[in-house]
Structures are given as C-alpha cells and as structure tokens.
C-alpha cells in the first residue's frame, strides 16, 4: 500500500517535537478564536500567517512550509470545535457554520444541559474530523474529480435542495418560515451584482456596495434579540438558568447522538468537498435530516441533543472535506482555505495537481498532524467544558451586558464600520419582535447565505444554455437533487395522508372487533 507508506512518513514528520508543538499551539489558538464571535477561523488564520512565518524563519523552506501549515490547519479545525461554545452558551453564532447549533444547543443550555451539549459537540467533532481524514486519504483523487464536475446546474440544484430544507428549520408555521427565507434571499441581493457589476438596492451608498454582512445580521437577530427578550420577558427574575448537572453526556445521550454524528460526518464530508458550498450548508442539511428522521420532531428546537450532535459533526467533517479541492486541485473552497493556500504560496509550495508529487512532506505531514490535532483538541476540550459551562451560571445582570459587549466587539472587529453597529441594533430589535411572534430566524440567515450562490449559478447556467431552462434537466446529478427536493417537500403531506389511512384502517379493525 503506497498510501500507507506515505502516511507513515507523514506521521514521522508530524511527530517531530517541533511539529507537535505547532499543532498544539494551533489548536489552542483555534479554540480561543472560535469561542470569540467575530474573530472566525478566517481572520484567525490570516492574523497568524505573519507570526508563523517569523517563527519558522530559521528552517528550510520545505520544513517551514510543513510546520506553518500544520499550525494554520490546527487553528482552522480548532476554531470549528470552539465555534459551538458561544452558540450553545449565549445564543451567539460566531460564524455561519454554527448558526444552526443555536437552535437546540441554546435550549439545552437553558435547561441546564450545557455540559452535555458542549461535550457531545466536541465528541461529534472529533469523530467527524477523523472520518473526514480517512476519507481525505483514500478518496481524495476520485472525489476531486467529482467536485470539479459540479457546475452551475448542479450547484443550482444543490442550493434549491438546501432551501427546501427550510421546512426542517420551521417552527410552528411553514408559511412563516417561507416568509423569512424570502426575506433572507431579498436581503442577499443588496450590493454590487458579481455577474454584471450593477449596483442593486445600494442607493448610491458605497457602504452597501459589498452587500450586507452575514455576521452582523446573525449576531443581531440571535444574540441581541435574545438579550432583549430576556429583559422584556423578565426571565432573569426567576433565575431561569438551572445549575449545570453534569459535564459528560449520559449513556442515553450517546446512544441518541451516535447515528446523527455518523450521518452528519458523511453528509458534511461530501458537501465540504464542493468548492463554495462548505460547512454552513452542511450543518443546515444535517439538522434537517435529523429532524426528518426523528420520531419525536417536537423535541427539535426545544433542546434535542441530535440537533447539536449532527450539525456539529457535519461542520467539522466539511472543514476536512474542503481540504480535498485545496490540496489536489489548488482550488480553495472557502475563505479560510483560500488564506491557507496563500500561506503555502508564501513558501513557494503551490497546492494543486502536483502537490503530492512535488511536496509529499508537506501534504502527508499535514494529514498526519490533523489526526494528532483532533486528538489534542478532544483532550483539551473536555476539561475546558467545565469552565465554559460556568458562564451559564453567571447571574443575568452580569451576563447580559457581557453578551452585548461581545456582540458589539465581534461585529466591529470584522466590519470596522459604525453602519454595522447600527444595523446590529436594528437586527436585535427585529430579532426580538420576530421570534416573539414565532417567526423562525434561521431560514432568514440561510436565505442570506445561499442567495448569491443560487443567483449566480442560476444565471451562469442560463448563459451557457442561451436561456434554455431545459439545461437544468440535462444533468443526472441535478435531476436526482431536484427529485429529492420534491420528495422532501411533498413527504409531510404524503405521510399525513398515509397516517390518516392507517388510523382509518385501525379503526376499521376495531369496529370489526
């Protein structure tokens, strides 16, 4: 087995004390970066590049490239571990991939189950990370071919399917969920159109040219909205937050989570390899799948552990999967991997079809170090959970101002404009009003993320076909996805009819008795 030989060499590289230290340093920084909203994996990696280049200054170019990419990758997946913490504890998603974790994670925290939620997300992330790596080692080549064959038509179909999963995010009313989705899609059209460059809904304000920042909307709707809600509904008087009962999940929790973690890992890995699709879609998909296969759908949105385990596994697996197009094709699938590619280029290591031949030490050293890094993260995170979970026990009179401060700091750190702070406040008020009227917030965020991807790919496909809509039925993969979409949307109605028949049949039997 040639692959195993290379992997063994990779482990030899990764086990050098220097590289172990770099991996450890990387995952620690990654976790802290993930915990703070605003500083996501992308800015974390970007900020570290100059530091790594000066630390590795004395090494040969090949060794320096290996050590720094090991550290930067550590930051990347470390941030994915840490990102769930604020979502679960204070309803503040730090990046798009952890939006969906707020839905059930925060509910679990409110019920005093923050420890279980945090530990199951760490365990799920660990398994997903390892599975994605195994996939990366054995399937990188065939999958990279599949990833590039994904064209505008297939992306359009995938995103339509993604939007259909809104049904999984809906609270009580499907119509309200759809209203929110359309609102999200409409907001996403603000800014300069990337296909033609025409400015839309910008009112000649340059601040709107680059569109509305997702983070501002998400933090406003979720975190500020929740703060306002707590105050307005006087939750704090009753000392609503219960004591943290335990840190480790119960046997039942583990049993309930094992299948969601497995499904989330596989789903996340495959969506992760598609350039541009990434971790956020994977986590939304995973949530909807878990909700639809669950027997007890009412639990979702009220603290179902499956709603945390699945998406957290999915977003971690996706970050592993996204390394495939980066390493084998030189195509960065996300902002973070693009910055990592830039770091490799600094050492004149060009990721791409020749990477594994030209720089085996870098490629295999990185893969091997990720096994070690994931293990380090699990070991590091378990004791940290006890510390994090304490946050929940902070009296609201201190906790609420802290949440506000973190939210403002996070948004300002990314956007550095006053406009976004005002937008943040507006979104907070909006989030409070919407959620207290049972309008689900996640579909709006999903629409905002998927809008530009849907529009650009749809228009590219139509340009290719000279405006012929039949192009969308010309690809087998796309047709399969459209069929799944239709089945997904139709299934509740179909099940309802079936269920009715069943009841009728049973009643028939009863009457015969």
């Amino acid at each position, binding site marked *: 087995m040639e692959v195993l030989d290379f992997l063994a060499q990779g482990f030899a590289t990764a086990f050098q004390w220097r590289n172990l230290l770099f991996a450890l340093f990387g995952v620690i920084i990654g976790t802290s970066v993930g915990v703070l909203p605003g500083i996501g994996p992308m800015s974390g990696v970007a900020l570290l590049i100059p530091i790594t280049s000066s630390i590795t200054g004395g090494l040969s170019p090949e060794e320096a490239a290996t050590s720094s990419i090991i550290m930067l990758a550590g930051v990347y997946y470390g941030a994915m571990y840490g990102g769930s913490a604020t979502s679960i504890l204070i309803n503040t998603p730090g990046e798009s991939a952890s939006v969906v974790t707020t839905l059930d994670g925060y509910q679990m925290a409110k019920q005093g189950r923050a420890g279980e939620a945090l530990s199951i997300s760490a365990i799920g992330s660990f398994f997903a990370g390892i599975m994605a790596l195994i996939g990366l080692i054995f399937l990188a080549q065939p999958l990279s071919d599949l990833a590039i064959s994904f064209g505008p038509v297939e992306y359009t179909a995938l995103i339509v399917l993604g939007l259909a999963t809104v049904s999984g995010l809906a609270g009580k009313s499907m119509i309200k969920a759809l209203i929110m989705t359309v609102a999200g899609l409409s907001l996403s059209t603000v800014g300069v159109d990337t296909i033609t460059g025409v400015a839309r809904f910008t009112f000649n304000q340059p601040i709107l040219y680059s569109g509305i920042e997702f983070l501002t909307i998400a933090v406003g709707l979720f975190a500020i909205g929740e703060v306002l809600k707590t105050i307005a509904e006087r939750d704090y008087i009753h000392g609503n937050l219960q004591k943290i009962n335990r840190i480790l999940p119960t046997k039942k929790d583990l049993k309930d989570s094992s299948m969601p973690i497995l499904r989330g890992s596989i789903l996340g890995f495959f969506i992760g390899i598609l350039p541009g699709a990434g971790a956020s879609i994977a986590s939304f998909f995973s949530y909807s799948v878990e909700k639809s296969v669950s027997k007890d759908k009412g639990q979702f949105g009220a603290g179902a552990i499956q709603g945390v385990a699945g998406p957290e596994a999915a977003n971690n697996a996706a970050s592993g999967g996204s390394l495939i197009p980066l390493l084998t094709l030189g195509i*960065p699938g996300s902002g973070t991997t693009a910055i990592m590619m830039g770091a490799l280029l600094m050492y004149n290591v060009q990721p791409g079809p020749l990477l594994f031949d030209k720089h085996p030490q870098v490629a295999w050293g990185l893969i091997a170090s990720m096994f070690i890094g994931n293990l380090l993260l699990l070991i590091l995170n378990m004791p940290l959970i006890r510390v994090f979970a304490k946050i929940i026990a902070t009296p609201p009179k201190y906790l609420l101002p802290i949440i506000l401060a973190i939210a403002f700091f996070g948004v300002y750190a990314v956007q550095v404009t006053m406009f976004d702070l005002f937008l943040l406040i507006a979104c907070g008020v909006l989030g409070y009003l919407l959620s207290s009227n049972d309008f689900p917030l996640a579909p709006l965020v999903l629409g905002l993320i998927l809008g530009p991807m849907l529009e650009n790919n749809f228009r590219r496909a139509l340009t290719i076909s000279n405006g012929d809509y039949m192009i969308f039925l010309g690809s087998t993969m796309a047709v399969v996805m459209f069929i799944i979409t239709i089945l997904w949307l139709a299934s509740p109605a179909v099940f309802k009819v079936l269920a009715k028949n069943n009841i009728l049949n049973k009643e028939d039997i009863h009457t015969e008795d």
Partner: protein
Amino acid sequence: MVKNLKSGIMVMLVLVLTVFLAACGSGSNEGAAGEATSGGSEASNYPEKPVTFIAPSGAGGAFDTALRSVTKILSDTGLVEQQMTVEPKPGGGGTVFMSEYATQDTKDDYKLFLSSPTLLINNLKKEANTPYGYKDTTPIAALFQDYGVIAVGADSEFDDLQSLFEHMKANPSELSVAGGSAPGALDHLTFLIPANEYGLDAAKIKYIPYDGKSESMTALLGGNADALASVASSVSEFLEAGKIKVLAVDAPERLPAPFEDVPTLKESGIDAEFAIWRGIFGPKEMTPEAKEFWSTKLEEMVETEEWQAELEAKGWEPFYKNSEEFEQLLADQEQRITDALKSMGMANE
C-alpha cells in the same frame, strides 16, 4: 399594563446603552484615524503601523499571488521592517473595491493595492463600470507583466487557436468561454480582442464570468466551460500537470517552460497585443512621504536577486516603471482600451 410599560422601559434602556457603546466605539475610531494622519506628516516615522495591501480579486487569484510575492520579498530582504498583510477583496471584478477605496480611503497611507489594466477597463466600459479610474489613485510603480492565455481542457477537440475560432465562427453561441472577471473586464478582453481581430462577432461569444481565476479554472476542468481566458501564471501548474491545453499566449515571444510549446498570438496569425501589467497604487491624497517611501522601496526591491528568482519561478516578465513612467503608460493605455471597447460597442460614452 404596568408590566408592559416596565419591560418597554427596559428595552429602551438597553437600546440607549447599546447606542452609547456604539458612540464610544466611534470616538476611539476617530482618535485612531487622527493619529494615523498626524503620523504620516512625520517622514521618518512612516510606516509606524502594519500596512495592508488589497488584492481586488478572489483569494488565491492572480492579484493575491502577486501581492504575496511582493510583501514576502520586501520583508525577507529587510527592505520593509513593518508588518505587511495581504487582503483579498473580491466582487464586481474590482469595482466593489474601487468604489469603496476611492470614496472612503482617499487619505489612508496604510492601505495600498495592486491592480492591472482592469483598473482602466472598469472605468471605461459601458456596463457595470465605476466612476473611479487611475486618476483617483496615486500610481506608485509597475512591477511586472503577466500574459493573457487562451486554454481548453486536456481532452478538447481543439489543438490550436485557429480551429477553435473557426468552430466558433461556424457555430456561434455553442461554446462557452469562462473567465475570472466580469463581462468587459480583463479576462473577457483577453479573449475578445484576438477573437474580434479574427472576425468573430463579439456579441455572440458566450462569456461566463466566475468570481475568480480559481473558480473559472474549476469550470474548465469540470467540463462546465469549453474554453478559458486567464493569465499565464494562473494556469502554468495545470498545464504542467497535463490537465489543460493552452492554445495561445498573448506575448511578444514564446514564454519559458512549461509554455515552451505554446505559440504566441502572432504565430497563430492574429495581430493583437494586449499587455497585462501589474502595479502598486496608493490612495489619491497619499502624503508625499508615504509615496516616496514606497517608490524607493519598490525600486530597490526589483533590483534584488530574490525578486529576479520570484519572477522566474512565477513566469512573470520584469516590467518596472517608476511613478512618472507608470502614469504615462496608464494614459497611453487608457486611450488604447477606449478604442478597443468602442470598436465592440462596449465603451462608456
């Protein structure tokens, strides 16, 4: 009722608090900005904080790659001690960045950018343009040239540019051409100018814009585009790996490996040259000290061995022009692009 009123008051209080916090944020921001301008006036002190270089294209694209080389060599050779960061700013083929830069950063000595003739095209084309051109910046130096290429997939039926153009002439609107920038921008012109010269109808060429050069390459590799317009440095790795065929380079003579077997446009019988320079710009109202600093440093940089080695490694041709020469070049090229766009009915008039 009273309860509602109270909760209303609480909400108001929080809002007041948040506005207050926001105001504090603004105050400190202004303070920082003030510091920056006062710092700029003391020549010896510039640069006294990290400098950001913006690549107005997708991450990993040609501008990004170029800036990372430049900043790495400036710091490796010790020419610039201050920390330099590279920030990709995609969108609208560079118009998004330019609209922001020319309106909000006119005095920021710590924000420079790298561009190409795209800067001129975005200002001159009819659709999706920006009102801001090179006159809204301070040109500091042109550094090197990159050459336009036209490529097809490795298993494409076309082996030379004539057969591709001939097929497109006979079957208009059949083949699609992918590029990493907006219609009318650089990649589009890289294809359009020779095609136009060959006698193809510009309006019938199906150009599909992607968000960057790596995305457009993905489209070609995955069979979602029939041809690709890009630059030599962005495709060399894929040519070397045998994933694509490069039909022609837009260069005065053949380029070194891996392009040694690729004919120039002239060899393909098409007489159209469109040179693609890369240069560094500063904000319009850049202080003379900052301009002087970067002019000197960049002039020193292009003389270093490290820079020569980098040019060779990346397949770039040396093309240094100092600030005055660069401005002259820009004025000349503005005229040429205007003419080219006019002949295709795409000029902003």
